[in-house]
């Protein structure tokens, strides 16, 4: 039932709105609204019930295991939320003077410093509001760098075929042409293809390492040399930073610019699709172009770095400083972890992934890159199963929902057929992983015994398989009173 269907004309939550209609008004008649606003008229209690019930139709980390590749669905500590929502923090206006926000700015400054330390970059800007915006900002800095040198001919960005869709979309949004390069049979970027692709038109290479195939690019140092020698820059997509945090710094791998998904590696909540936060880090040569604002420390006081300090900055990419409250949650998380905790993230994420990969292999699943270590994630391919039984990766994913597990990432990366990209994250216990393996085994048996049942999954969710084609052909995108 939609919230609108609980609505009755004339119902008002008196405690939630000004007591009476205001008397003063000086809005010209011709600018006044004449049409009704179709917001529901529902009691506070019924509103609370409606949205509480809706929440119960969701899977979430707090209720289910999410082995979702490249998404790093780890536990979101509750303290990060409650402390970021202290009343002084949430009531602070973004344009309030700096001296009324020293506590908040201290947190932001320290977060910048810690992110610099763990990534090996020269400076960090906290402004990007999501991974894709971090990418856009990073690629804009690459452009600004080349143009500042009078080099206007670099019109191409190289992207491996295994990359997230945001990489090529970002390059195009930034006005570049995308050159896609292939992956070799072991899951590495094809070095010869890279060598053939670089040249005087190369602005840069966007790379995720470990890659979305769940393996570490062993040749990253050589790739860096090839791209730099051609005059291009190296962009690090930090989507999988969780796998190497405390082991390898992107700065040491030769990257000139990076983004870090705080909603992955630094455990800020996914919130059903956002908000994210993706600070960008830069090497020395990109320092002049970094987006503002940044927090500086002078003596014991903190202040904003603005256009005046950074005249060559690519500018502002959000109305204030990105998703400030998300940054605060990440800050609290890094302080809770501390130095030792920071090293443990990648160690236990990698342990969990390799254990799960080993156990699933023993259970009879085919691993896409069996001769490689898993990073914090790995790929299972169901190609053989599909050829034999007709059961697809998507069918298996939906059947996992019935067993109380969120589905792994399906059909990504695009180059592995019928794939499941599985990432357990470090916060899951061995018991949870074992129970997941047991459910995967059960599904294997079900595929043998009753494939049609598996193809019809899910069976226990609030709805059965939904008609996507109808949704796209006859778009119903907003409720109307008489529909």
């Amino acid at each position, binding site marked *: 039932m939609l919230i609108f269907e609980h609505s009755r004309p004339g119902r008002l939550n008196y405690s939630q709105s000004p007591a009476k209609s205001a008397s003063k008004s000086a809005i010209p008649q011709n600018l006044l609204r004449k049409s009704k606003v179709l917001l529901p008229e529902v009691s506070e209690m019924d509103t609370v019930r409606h949205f509480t019930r809706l929440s119960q139709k969701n899977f979430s980390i707090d209720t289910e295991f999410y082995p979702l590749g490249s998404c790093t669905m780890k536990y979101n500590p509750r303290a990060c939320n409650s*402390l970021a929502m202290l009343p*002084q923090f949430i009531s602070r206006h*973004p344009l309030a003077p700096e001296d009324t926000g020293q506590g908040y700015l201290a947190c932001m400054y320290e977060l910048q410093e810690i992110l610099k330390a763990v990534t090996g970059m020269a400076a960090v800007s906290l402004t990007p509001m999501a991974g894709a915006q971090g990418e*856009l900002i990073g690629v804009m800095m690459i452009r600004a760098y080349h143009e500042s040198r009078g080099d206007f001919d670099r019109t191409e960005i190289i992207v491996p075929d295994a990359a997230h869709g945001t990489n090529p979309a970002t390059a195009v949004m930034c006005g570049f042409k995308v050159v896609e390069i292939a992956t070799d049979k072991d899951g590495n970027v094809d070095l010869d293809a890279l060598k053939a692709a670089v040249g005087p038109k190369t602005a840069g290479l966007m790379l995720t390492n470990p890659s979305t195939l769940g393996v570490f690019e062993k040749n990253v140092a050589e790739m860096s040399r090839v791209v730099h020698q051609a005059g291009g820059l190296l962009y690090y997509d930090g989507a999988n930073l969780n796998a190497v945090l405390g082991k*390898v710094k992107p700065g040491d791998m030769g990257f000139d610019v990076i983004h870090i998904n705080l909603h992955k590696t630094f455990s800020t909540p996914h919130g059903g699709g956002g908000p994210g936060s993706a600070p960008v880090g830069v090497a020395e040569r990109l320092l002049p172009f970094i987006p503002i604002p940044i927090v500086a420390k002078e003596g014991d006081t903190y202040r904003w770095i603005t256009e005046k300090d950074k005249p060559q900055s690519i500018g502002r990419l959000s109305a204030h400083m990105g998703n400030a409250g*998300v940054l605060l949650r990440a800050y609290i998380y890094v302080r809770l972890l501390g130095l030792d905790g920071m090293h443990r993230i990648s160690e236990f994420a990698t342990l969990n992934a390799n254990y799960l990969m080993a156990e699933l292999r023993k259970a009879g699943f085919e691993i896409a890159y069996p001769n490689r270590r898993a990073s914090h994630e790995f790929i299972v391919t169901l190609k053989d199963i599909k050829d034999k039984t007709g059961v697809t990766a998507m069918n298996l994913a939906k059947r996992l929902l019935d067993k109380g597990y969120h589905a792994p990432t399906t059909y990504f990366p695009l180059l592995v057929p019928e794939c499941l990209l599985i990432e357990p994250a470090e916060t899951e216990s061995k018991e949870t992983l074992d129970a997941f393996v047991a459910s995967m085994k059960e599904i294997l048996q079900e595929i043998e015994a009753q494939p049609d049942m598996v193809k019809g999954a899910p069976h226990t969710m609030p709805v059965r398989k939904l008609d996507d084609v109808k949704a796209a052909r006859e778009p119903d995108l907003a409720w109307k009173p008489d529909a």
Partner: protein
Amino acid sequence: MPFIPHTKEDVAEMLTSIGAKTIEELFDEIPKELISGELTGVPPGLSEMEITRLMMERASQDGFYQNFIGAGAYEHHIPAAVWQITTRGEFYSSYTPYQAEASQGTLQLLYEYQSMMASLTGMDVSNASMYDGATALAEAALMAVRAHKTSRRILIPQTVHPVYRQVVRAIVSNQKIEVVELPYCTECGQILPESLANSGHEDFAALVIPQPNFFGVLEQVDALTDWAHSKNAFAIGVVNPTALALLTPPGEWGDKGADIAVGEGQPLGIPLSSGGPYFGFMACKNELVRQMPGRIIGRTTDLDNKEGFVLTLQAREQHIRRSKATSNICTNQGLMVTAATIFMSLVGPEGLRRVAAQSHANTLELVEQLVKIKGVERAFSGPVFHEVALTLSKSVVDVLSKLKQKGILGGYSLQGQYPELGNALLVCATETKTESDLQNYAAAMQQALS
């Protein structure tokens, strides 16, 4: 180990299963010369008790103020239920609803949100959010250029939020789109439609129309929309959602209505929080929906013909279309939209109208008291919503500093962005301010100027 549940026995058993001796061995594919060793610059870990103490100290260092700053972020009452429900784990810690059957809660909520925003803006369809108001406007500009096909120029009045203009410029200039700024009438604080008629602008993809504008002044939206349409360009409204409870929505501007409406969603139940996370909203006419960026939710049916909700029209998006997508946006501001949807449900149409009307009335009342003070004048003659530009006889910086000593954040100084206005201050009084708050402000201003 914080947030890591493994016992020693677990680790041993897991390594045995893998066939490795140590965890370290699992990193043996990383070239040795890249391994960084012990990190420096990261402080030791804190317990929850210790971090609580630290954050409470930092929060109390920042304290509380009577806030009269608006300038794009507005203080409103937020019902307690909004964030109590929004931070339920099932919303807070859920993933993007790609697995529709396991995400019906989020998907239905987003459909309800889209329905509310479409009505509030008077448009046909809304997407499920952009990052913030500024980036929503930038995406609207890109969308207009894609749909227009021939022109790569956008007209933006100087009465649009200065940072929005900076963000638009930063984003669209990547695609060689030209941004032309239109001057405003320094007497009325508006874009004069008659000045556009003689402006010589013929070839442009869209005109941006703010309502209210950055000065809090109401623009002559009907004439501006019609003028843009007369030049075969799109009209993009950038609007305050609270104001739409009182004002003609973009979809009804002029003869045909604006084509795209965007804005900052923060006033709908999102706390000020030093600037984020907020959310940008974007709505448009049906004809433009396939050019719209971002996630869109549709209502459909399942195998039993039961109602359900899915992400739809995904052929616009980066995870399907990659380099041919309408935008690179992936993550949006889902949780903020959750809060906004609960907020709009709790206040309803009459509650939102009262919030808007009271904010408007409080601002008028404050101005009435302030202009009685010698040295305070209204900067513009145009009608306002809940924010007003004043010119002062003394330096705005000094005045704000004196007000701050009394615990009042007196407004946003326009001197940096609009030096031509002299000692100009932008002041906002929402429904959160009482009569005595307004009187205190006026008294403090009187002292500061005397």
